């Protein structure tokens, strides 16, 4: 896929969404420092091109499921950043009414089946979403995002098998940032991820996850296969993770040089801008204007979140059931 095949507006949207995710994450990290965002969050910064490249191939009615590192996928799928920010602040106006938090952001209206606090749990749930589409006769598809660490949970393999035997319209996107928390993937994973999927006769693609066009193109192939009734595909996407595993992680298992090099050489926003200059498709000034627009949107989301009330105490025991008695 070359940049030339996207329209001017689409290119701007790609940049805007990647930039939005990056600034959202940077701002969340800052706000964590104020103590106003409770708990901890897992930041997606560095991996933007993966979520954006994949979700650009999706329609509003398509489903995605995410991981504990779910902000990027949510934003790329079109979840409103105001309600996401409010959710992080634990406010009633949040996507989940303040009851979910960072690890459980979900918005079914946008096809976002939820971030997930349980590693790999999204894969079988997404098989279920794909099954729904198939049984209901829709042409929608489902995408399950998971990390390299998740690949070692048995339920991933079980999901591959199910997806294949049921010929489900699903794409597994394995975002490999080289680490599961503080443990290097190389220390805990045998063989190759693509070969694992291939052993279930699931076609695979290996992708540079800092190149949004490469991701877009691979996702296009996978989504087309799924939509056309051709069954599952697995994308193995290589991405950098800019921050520690979570917002409080001092990240001492990676050297400062390694982290610096990662940011200098594998930044999807920098390479996007460079590419645009090379092919003269977007002006610097246009991109700068997007930066400002994003900045303002995030300022506004934070201000609104801060001003919003916490959930009423009655919310503690509501929503446990649709109806109990």
């Amino acid at each position, binding site marked *: 896929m070359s940049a030339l095949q996207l329209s001017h507006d689409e290119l701007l949207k790609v940049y805007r969404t990647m930039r939005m995710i990056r600034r959202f994450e940077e701002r969340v990290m800052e706000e964590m420092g104020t103590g106003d965002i409770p708990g901890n969050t897992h930041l997606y910064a560095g991996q933007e091109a993966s979520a954006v490249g994949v979700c650009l191939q999706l329609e509003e009615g398509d489903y995605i499921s995410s991981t504990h590192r779910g902000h990027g996928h949510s934003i790329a799928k079109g979840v409103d950043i105001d309600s996401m920010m409010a959710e992080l602040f634990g406010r009633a106006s949040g996507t*989940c009414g303040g009851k979910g938090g960072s690890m459980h952001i979900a918005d079914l209206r946008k096809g976002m089946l939820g971030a997930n606090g*349980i590693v790999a749990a999204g894969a079988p749930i997404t098989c279920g979403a794909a099954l729904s589409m198939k049984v209901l006769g829709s042409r929608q598809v489902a995408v399950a995002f998971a990390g390299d660490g998740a690949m070692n949970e048995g339920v991933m393999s079980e999901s591959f098998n199910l997806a294949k035997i049921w010929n489900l319209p699903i794409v597994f996107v394995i975002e490999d940032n080289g680490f599961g928390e503080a443990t290097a993937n190389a220390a805990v994973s045998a063989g190759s991820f693509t070969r694992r999927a291939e052993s279930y006769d699931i076609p695979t693609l290996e992708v540079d996850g800092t190149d949004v066009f490469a991701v877009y193109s691979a996702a296009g192939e996978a989504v087309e296969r799924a939509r056309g009734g051709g069954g599952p595909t697995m994308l193995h996407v290589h991405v950098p993770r800019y921050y520690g595993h979570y917002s409080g992680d001092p990240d001492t298992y990676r050297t400062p040089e390694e982290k610096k090099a990662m940011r200098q050489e594998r930044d999807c926003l920098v390479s996007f801008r460079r590419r645009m200059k090379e092919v003269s498709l977007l002006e610097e000034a246009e991109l700068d204007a997007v930066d400002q627009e994003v900045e303002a949107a995030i300022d506004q989301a934070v201000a609104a979140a801060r001003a919003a009330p916490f959930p009423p105490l009655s919310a503690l025991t509501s929503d446990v059931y649709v109806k109990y008695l």
Partner: protein
Amino acid sequence: MAQKSFRQALNEALHFEMARDPRVIMMGEDLTGGAGANGVKDAWGGAFGVTKGLLGAFGPERIRDTPISEAAFIGAAAGAALTGLRPIAEIMFVDFAGVCLDQIMNQAAKFRYMFGGRAKTPLVIRATYGAGSRSGSQHTQALHSIFTHIPGLKVVIPSTPYDAKGLLLQAIRDDDPVIFLEHKMLYDTVGEVPDGAYTIPFAEARVARDGKDVLIIAIGRMVSVAEEAARKLAADGISACIIDPRTTSPLDEDTLLDFTDKIGRVVIVDEANPRCSVATDISALLADKSFDALKAPIKLVTAPHSPVPYAPNLEDAYIPTAAAVAKAATSIAKR
């Protein structure tokens, strides 16, 4: 005696027992922080720093980082326990036991019984539990009631650094599978802990505070909440006795019954959901065996029947408070 944190107390127990018994091994996610960049190791010492320093002392053969694959490594730990090792496996958050419940509930817990008593499973599963960290519904549960329900498992839930060390040493030396639950919010609490090794037998409740008007039975972290309540009650002229069962399976029924007989008024405090729980179990025991001694209804102070919420105000309302305990105690003290 030296003042040490709960975390330090556990770390000492692990150090001591691994040094004493070469069959003791450990496994879990990020126990050492894996082989990161340039082979840097022991970056974390487990998600909560409890296993820090063990890698240097015992090497990667005996303290190993696992893939994120609870069913596989908990099952492997159970198999190793069955065949000569004494593994300690760590489930980072007890919520993740959902992934490997089969290995705990249908395998490890049943080996001895199903094999006609011809097997031992000296396995310790350490896991963190509990609310208070603003981590949302899947990282904050208190699941001791579920494990207590399963025959074959022993369940330990310490409330002080001193108990944490003594009970962990006991757990590692026990020949049955033990679920050892550590409340995340207790790791930094400090108390007196001897340098040397000592064990605390199972089914031996601790009298955390003596008193005569109301008996408060509190589980795990709720012991400190009960203590705070007892101070409030004392100011109102009500003398509260606090008992910490320390193990919910086996349970020290005798002590709980003796004190119930003596005091006749009981409040049970537990952070777990209320239905089919340790709190209801103890309540049923007392009602069954000490009914005649009861001077008032048994009061339960627990979390509501809901998942743990994320919003700070809701999570605070979820966790039983000292005020709620004091209120319950007051309501029965004068009856």
